[in-house]
Every structure is written in C-alpha cells, then in structure tokens.
C-alpha cells in the first residue's frame, strides 16, 4: 500500500507536505512552464503588501558558500493588482493557496487580511513578521513577542482562515515568539525565514549587496533551521511548517523527524524546478523502506529517544 503523505495545518488539508516557500516562487505562474503546479501540497505566494513596492536598489542577490544572500526588499505590485491579476490565476489551481502578507504597521496586516478574507481561493494566510530586508515592520515585529501576540490576536478577530505566523531566526529565543503566536490563536508557525548576513567584495572594498545586508538561504542554513524546528516543537502544540535549505529528499525527511508537519522548498526551486517531484518520490520511498504508513508516524520522531 502506498504510504499516506497527506498533511493537515489547522483546517487546511494538504495532499502532501510540500509547500513553496514565499518569495521563491512568484505566484506560481513562471514555474507552470516547467512542472504541474498541482504536484505541490500547497502554494505560498510572494510577500504581498498593501501598496506596490519596488524593492531595494543595487545588487540584490549574491551566491555564498552553499547558499545565497538576497535583499530583494519585498518587491511586489500591491494588493489591488494581486486581486485583479493574480487571484484569477490562483483560483484555477487545484491545491490550497496560502497568501503571504507583510506590512509596516499592524493596521496594514489588518487591512490585507480584511481584503483577502472574502476570497475562497485564498485558503490561508501566512503572516510575514520576519522579512530582514525592509526597514520598517517585518523583522521589527517578528523579534518582539508582544507584538507578534498582538498582530496574531487582531488578525484572528478578522478571519477564520488558518493563520500561519512566519518566524525569524534572527532572535535569541524563537520559541518565546512561537509561544505568543500560539497563545494569540495562530493555527501554525512557519520557520525559518532567512538568516541575516552580508558579503564584502574584497577587490572593491565594499559590501556586495546594495542593501548592505540580506537574508541567507540555501543548504548553508539547514542545520540552523533544523535545530530551531526541533526546539520549537517542544514548546508549542500547533503545527510547524519547516523550511530552510531543503534541497534533497533526505533534508525534507529530517525536517519532518524534527517536528515539522509540512515543509517548504525555497531556494532549491531556483536551481531545480523539479525538486518537489523528486523530494516527494524520495519521501514515499523512504516511508516504504521504514514501514511508515502515514506522515503522522514520522513527525517529531527524532524526539522519541530522549522522551523515553
């Protein structure tokens, strides 16, 4: 019998645990030339703000050892355009669509939630309180447990759609923030967003990125992400969507074993558009080999010996 790889995030049912990581997949359109988007468990859109944003100037992406640094700066055309031009495309997908929202003020998040709530094609919201590349909002919210509680609680009043709070690794205690999100009524947390970093062009004696600092992603961050998911799993009961450098099947399995109920693929999409298919096949094969009949049996399994 084929192992069951369906997963659940609150009321959100996923055919498989693989999601796109926000900001690495546009709104899916570009990759639809290369793969069937319905092979994903769900699609998480590029970060959306109320007004359009042109993003940061200068060099925005730099390759680093086993990773990349980016400082795009939440470039997006704003909610007006999204509703008019992107929702009709997303509506046609057979998989859940999770819209990632970002703002400068709490009321930006509230307004975005209010505008998106009526659309049945928007299955859930991922609340980005962790973008390292914008000056206001973003990380400033995500590193403050009280503000994460407040944003979550306010959005909870506006929508019954699943709320996923996307957490930053750029804090001393990510667990404390996850706990506040859970308390305020979040359905899940997703982690990690990128790790803040920089690179210097030694020939020109200048920072490489136009924005000076950027977010590190790719295989280089995987052990950090895995550790954070492992720790947060012990602190909250709501599901974790794990991400951070997943490149191959083994990486994906490790995240599930650490406690993630779903996983997102980000930077790997830039390199291998077929990654979700390859990783899904690996997962099925792995479950066969280890006699797992459902994903449920695997989630958090790496914790069992300690607990025994």
């Amino acid at each position: 019998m084929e192992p069951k790889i369906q997963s659940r995030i609150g009321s959100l049912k996923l055919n498989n645990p693989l999601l796109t990581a926000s900001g690495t997949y546009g709104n899916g359109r570009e990759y639809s030339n290369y793969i069937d988007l319905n092979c994903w468990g769900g699609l998480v859109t590029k970060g959306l703000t109320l007004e359009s944003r042109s993003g940061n100037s200068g060099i925005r992406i730099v390759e680093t050892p086993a990773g990349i640094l980016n400082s795009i700066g939440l470039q997006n055309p704003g909610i007006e355009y999204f509703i008019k031009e992107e929702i009709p495309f997303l509506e046609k997908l057979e998989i859940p669509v999770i819209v990632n929202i970002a703002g400068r003020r709490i009321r930006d998040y509230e307004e975005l939630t209010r505008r998106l709530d009526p659309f049945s094609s928007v299955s859930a919201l991922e609340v980005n309180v962790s973008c390292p590349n914008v000056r206001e909002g973003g990380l400033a919210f995500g590193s403050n447990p009280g503000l994460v509680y407040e944003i979550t609680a306010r959005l909870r009043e506006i929508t019954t759609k699943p709320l996923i709070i996307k957490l930053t690794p750029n804090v001393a205690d990510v667990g404390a923030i996850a706990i506040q999100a859970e308390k305020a009524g979040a359905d899940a947390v997703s982690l990690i967003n990128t790790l803040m970093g920089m690179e210097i062009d030694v020939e020109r004696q200048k920072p490489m990125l136009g924005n000076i600092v950027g977010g590190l992603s790719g295989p280089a961050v995987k052990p950090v992400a895995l550790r954070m998911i492992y720790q947060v799993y012990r602190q909250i009961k709501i599901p974790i969507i794990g991400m951070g450098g997943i490149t191959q099947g083994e990486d994906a399995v490790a995240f599930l074993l650490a406690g993630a109920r779903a996983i997102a693929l980000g930077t790997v999409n830039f390199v291998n558009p077929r990654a979700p298919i390859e990783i899904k096949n690996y997962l099925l094969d792995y479950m066969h080999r280890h006699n797992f009949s459902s994903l449920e049996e695997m989630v958090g399994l790496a914790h069992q010996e300690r607990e025994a």
Partner: protein
Amino acid sequence: MLQESVLIEKNEEIAPGLYFLKIKTAGMAGQAEPGQFIHINLGTIYDPLLRRPMSILNAQGETLSVLYQVVGRGTRIMTRFRPRDEIDVLGPLGKGFEIEDSGQNFLVGGGVGAAPLVFLAHRLIKKEVDNKFFLGMRERELLFIKDFLPEEVEFFSSHENSPRGEAKQVTDLLPPHLKTEKKTSLYCCGPEGMYREIASLCNDCGDFSIQVSIDRRMGCGVGTCLGCAVKVKKPPREELQLVRACIEGPVFRWQEVNIDGT
C-alpha cells in the same frame, strides 16, 4: 522553455581561459533566438548552488553552443564537463534581439560577452542588407570569435594592445561608419560603459536604433527570485519601473534603460 538533461558534445579551451561548450538539444536549439540564454546546472547539488546563465553563441540543427570565460568557481567546474556527460539545462530563456527592417545592421561587441552577436549575425545575413560586425577585445588572441561568423559579415576589430594609431576600443572603430543616411540598427553586447559611449556617438547623427544586452547577477533565471532587476523608463510617461533581466530582458532598447538609476 525547457528543463532538459542534455548531452555534451564538446567542451574545449579555445583560447587561454576561454571555453567553447556545445550541447545536443534539438528542443532548445529549435526554439532559441539570438540574445537569449541557457541556465546551466553545475551538478554540484549543494555548492556552488546556483545555475550559471550563459548567452547562446549559436544554435544550429540539434546543437546549441556557448562561450564561457573561467572567472570563478562555477566556470572552473564547467571546464570539467566531458563529452557524453549529461548536464541539466533550462532554456532558452529571456527576450532576445528584435530583428528590425533597416538599411544596414551594426553588431557591436566588447569582450567575450559579444557571443550572442554571432548567433544574431547568422540570422541577419538572411536579409539583403549590409551587416558590419565591430568587435573589441582586451587581447588580440581573443579576436578569433570572428571564426564563428558567417563570411558575408564585414568584420572590424580592435584590441587594447593595438599599435599606436590603431583603434584600441571598439567605439574607436565606429565614427566613420556613423556618417550614413541609411536607417541603421545597432545590436550591442558588452559592458554598460560601452553602451553609453555608443549612444553618445550616435546622438544627432542619423536614424539609429540601439538594442543592448544587460548583464545582471541572476538567481532563478525564470522570473521568480527578482534578483536581476533592471530599471527601465516606459513610454509614454517615462515612468521608472523595475523589470527582470531574465524575462523582460536581457535585451532592451537603449533609450528605455536607466543604467545610472539601477
């Protein structure tokens, strides 16, 4: 646009540090347009991570070729590709040159980045007009790119070590040819400083249209990472907007590009 596992036919060092890579891919070769690029997976999985974007030097029948200079870790790894190896390639990507109806065509290239103009030259000779190819290289040894050109193209070259009195920069070659009544299309590949100079030479000179290929650091190559943003002015209101070198480019009309603002 395809993602394909393709066979390598050739990967040879044809000048110091400069390689000619030829792959077999009927699908991509058939679709490719001059100015487009392919995105090569190095096969390293974790590190270096990203694909390497390479302009198409030529596409004929079932094969497609690129020229690359060894400049870093990625290109050094590419030198280890052997005939009959399989590599994973995305392509053809981006928007190439628009072939215009003109009285004559000037192809102006600076450095190894001039490769796409070779492909373009093979297309342009099908039109019954004059095609002139101007190529500037740092060293004379690199001028052999002309070996890839069709015979019908008139060829002019410069290099930085030329003897006194001869052209050192490709832009030194242009002025006598710009005194023309003919509608002229300039297709340019090289550094952005070269484009600026070409544009100022053409100013008030005649009926010229200039297309340029813009080089940016790329991530995905398919339009999602937004790493390769280029600032352009869009008529009619000349509003500045950011577009992607990998989708809306890499070829742009010079008057649209706002280099200094990027």
